[in-house]
């Protein structure tokens, strides 16, 4: 087996089909970039889920003097109400669901509000008394937070019980949709990449069928005949995969970390480590698909 000969044959074939190879490279590049982007979005969702679900809490808002009168006919919640809620949260019925909870009084709520809306015109209109006193309940299993919500909804002195997770689910569903769109585009483009690779190889084999025929007749082995064609597709796909990996890393480095992360410093974003985890997957996917596509395409030219 003389490798020099094989490489010369591949080189010749590549240079003959150069525009074909360039389009394989481009299509592989684009499709794998989309695959990578979809992967990044999924990683981002996963990261946000663990981060936020971890912090997800149920808020039991107690009545204030300014609460709407239909929910809070007696005005400001009394100390009794607070004791009742506190007791209920510590009772055996809810114990399995509650991890921990704490009480936030008017002043604490005001401080938090001022912090959150710092610089905003609204901040100056608000007084501590207007803000609800709140029991923040951290549940053990976010999926079962409904139990807490049901337990305190409609209880006298409680204005509203809100599961914070419902906010997050909305964000996640948007991110999910984006990820699905990226996967969809990636799927169409992967399909065209596979078609393209197998067609290139098939056409390459077709345009060299005399050569293949002669190789067979002078006694070249199948492996020897097959190799240049498969390598041809693999080389092109590898270049495309490398470009796609570069693009994914660049997206994370410059867009996510360089732009998004500085704009939204409180959100945790996917980092370079996630991107670097994706790149070998992209390489394997690109090369594997190319090898498969070319292998199948060349098969029917190999009957002796």
């Amino acid at each position: 087996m003389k490798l020099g000969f094989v490489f010369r044959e591949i080189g010749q074939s590549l240079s003959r089909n150069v525009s074909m190879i360039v389009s394989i490279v481009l299509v592989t590049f684009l499709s794998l970039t989309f695959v990578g982007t979809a992967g990044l979005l999924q990683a981002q969702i996963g990261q946000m889920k663990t981060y936020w679900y971890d912090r997800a809490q149920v808020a039991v808002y107690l009545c204030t003097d300014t609460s709407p009168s239909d929910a809070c006919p007696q005005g400001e919640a009394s100390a009794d109400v607070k004791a009742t809620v506190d007791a209920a949260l510590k009772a055996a019925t809810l114990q399995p669901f509650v991890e921990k909870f704490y009480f936030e009084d008017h002043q604490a709520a005001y401080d938090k509000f001022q912090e959150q809306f710092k610089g905003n015109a609204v901040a100056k209109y608000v007084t501590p008394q207007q803000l609800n006193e709140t029991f923040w309940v951290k549940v053990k299993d976010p999926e079962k937070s409904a139990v807490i919500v049901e337990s305190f909804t409609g209880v006298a002195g409680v204005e509203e019980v809100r599961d914070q997770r419902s906010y997050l689910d909305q964000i996640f569903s948007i991110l999910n949709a984006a990820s699905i769109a990226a996967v969809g585009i990636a799927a169409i483009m992967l399909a065209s990449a596979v078609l393209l690779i197998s067609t290139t190889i098939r056409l390459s084999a077709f345009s060299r069928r005399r050569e293949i025929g002669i190789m067979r007749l002078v006694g070249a082995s199948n492996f020897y005949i097959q190799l240049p064609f498969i390598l041809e597709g693999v080389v092109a796909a590898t270049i495309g995969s490398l470009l796609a990996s570069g693009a994914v890393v660049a997206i994370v480095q410059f867009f996510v970390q360089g732009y998004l992360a500085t704009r939204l410093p409180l959100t945790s974003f996917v980092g370079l480590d996630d991107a670097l985890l994706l790149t070998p997957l992209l390489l394997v996917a690109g090369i594997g698909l190319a090898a498969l596509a070319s292998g199948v395409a060349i098969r029917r030219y190999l009957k002796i």
Partner: protein
Amino acid sequence: MISISNVTKHHKGATRPAVDGVSFEIERGDFVFLVGASGSGKSTLLRLMLREEIASKGDIFVLGQNLVTVPSRKVPVLRRKMGVVFQDFRLLPNKTVFQNVAFSLEVIGKSSAFISEAVPEVLALVGLGEKAERYPNELSGGEQQRVALARAIVNKPDLLLADEPTGNLDPATSADIVALLEKINQAGTTIVMATHDVGIVDRLKRRVIELRQGVIVRDDKKSGYETALPNTDQIEMPAASEEQK
């Protein structure tokens, strides 16, 4: 060397078999002419011996293997011991004469030292030493035929199958090529050659196998091209025959 018994080859869609119940043996070192009208099955028989086609019936032993049953993966090794010249040359248009001949050595893994010695030698032998760097479309028909012959003999095969290797050559060049084939034959290579060239067959007086519509009608030692049998091939060409009369 070659032992063929009861071989029939029926192509799909053909009205009659191209080769029909043929049996013969060829010894090591023989020089055999295959003759017969156009379409009588000479090329088919050669392709069967190369396992380019597989017989519908019968057994074909070549170089110790039964080609009808031998598994595909053993075929390459077998073919490396055979040389073949095709009626349609089968040269690679995008390779030079040198590369065409070298290619057949490269694909079976010969060293480049061997190649750079053997190829110029064989090209000189067929009279193409000066045209080594030409491409096939820059050659005349006869020159292409000689390239095909050079490729077939460069690896000193045990068996040479030649399908009308002088079909595009003038009588003088033909004589040179045949002399070359005789020399190769004397060096030990068995040769089976399909031809229409009356002059060559008559002059060499070797074994002649004549086919007619896929059947052997004559198998004579030291014979000539012509035969006394009535020419029944005419039934195949009704219109042309009428024109002639």
